[in-house]
């Protein structure tokens, strides 16, 4: 009963800044993978270094982060990632499937 239902989504990017193939990079061009963990009250995303040859994610290579507290910010407009202590949620992310 204490389980918290969460969903995991992800999106690939070829670079840290928008470019023409940012929307749909070919596998060989993927450099960053954005992993999102979404629960009923927050959405937490880490954009991590990704190797398309080995399909390995480098969890210590954090390119950017997002954190939206949905009760006050249902539209996900106010990213509070930089203002947050991430030890707890990163532990959650460590259970990434």
């Amino acid at each position: 009963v204490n389980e918290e239902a969460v969903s995991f989504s992800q999106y690939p990017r070829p670079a840290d800044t928008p470019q023409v193939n940012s929307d749909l990079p070919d596998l060989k061009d993927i450099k960053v993978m954005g992993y999102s963990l979404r629960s009923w009250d927050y959405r937490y995303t880490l954009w991590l270094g990704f190797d398309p040859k080995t399909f390995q994610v480098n969890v210590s290579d954090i390119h950017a982060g997002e954190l939206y507290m949905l009760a006050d910010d249902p539209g996900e407009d106010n990213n509070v990632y930089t203002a947050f202590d991430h030890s707890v949620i990163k532990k959650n992310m460590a259970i990434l499937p």
Partner: protein
Amino acid sequence: AEMKNVLFIVADDLRTSLGCYGDPVVKSPNIDHLASKSQVFLNAYAQQAVCAPSRTSMLTSRRPDTTRLYDFKSYWRVHSGNYTTIPQYFKSKGYFTVSVGKVFHPGIASNHTDDYPYSWSIPAYHPPSFRYEKEKMCKGEDGKLHANLLCAVNVTEQPGGTLPDLESTDEAVRLLKSRVNNDDPFFLAVGFHKPHIPFRIPQEYLSLYPIEQMKLAPDPDVPKHLPPVAYNPWTDVRKRDDVQKLNISFPYGPIPKDFQLRIRQHYYAAVSYMDAQVGRLLSTLDALGLADNTVVVFTSDHGWSLGEHGEWAKYSNFDVTTRVPLIFFVPGVTTFLDWQGPSTFPFIDVLTQPEYSFQNGKVGKNVVELVDVFPTLSSIAGLGTPQSCPDVSFQEELCAEGRNLANTFRYGERG
């Protein structure tokens, strides 16, 4: 108990812009009516907000890191593992399985065969008029034809006097009629192409959304603290002729406000057009006496940004692109047949009856995922649920990375 048929309906790029999800603008009476007799999951999320990866993940119950499909250019059986699909599993249990329209993503991602014969009993049907979808079919102000984003048409002037989703619905209706007297249960998957761009839709649906009543997204600006890597520059939208003419700066735009309103108007009109096809399909199911032993699933592959965060299209991790409708109609579970009254699914013509409203059936608020559809649907159909996958499951042909949600239909949610 007797094996239930399955009607599996997938819309393309449909966000939760439906009446049954609380959207105040859209008119979607047929889907809302389905929801009033169903289990509605209010917080369902796709695993990746782009067509092929999301569809392959949903239909195999494997996440993108297991299918290793992040673009459109690989077929999971060759590229990562011989994972069993939902229709393949039903086929192995004696179901006649058939695909109409866009269920798997066509092309390389489904081996140019929509994964036939593994998943389907007969080759998949694709509407012939879809070949014109990216052609210059849209009459511009200059009277010439263009490949526009906004493409409301007089259907009689289109090639063949039809559109892809009209053809898909005709084919699905034909297939339902052919199954009435057949004892084998069927698994019919119908994939509508709308509201995916271009908005090539019957022009009459625009009249439901007068432009003067349209509003911009509540948060149309790129958020201050949004990391650049997170932003989707909506390249596919930019490529359409009418958008190119606007000379919008890359990557952040913005699109001129009047054109933003027109995009939103066309998206909603495309949803109402697709809703009408769902209504035709469900009313046929009912008229053939199949509604009381057919499970109906309605979902989409991912959402679509309508200007929120200064973004359009999918390609991101925002809720507006990952959150999807997920509705299960299970006769005898989500609704009881003696409650039905004269008919279970009457066709509701939104063009003549735009002001319909409904009360949802049972709703689920807990967060769920599209990878949950496979184990849940298998359980509802009484076929037994695939095992949960181990952490690394590349060698496992049949397992599910999603959860079985069927118990929430009867006993409500916990947690």
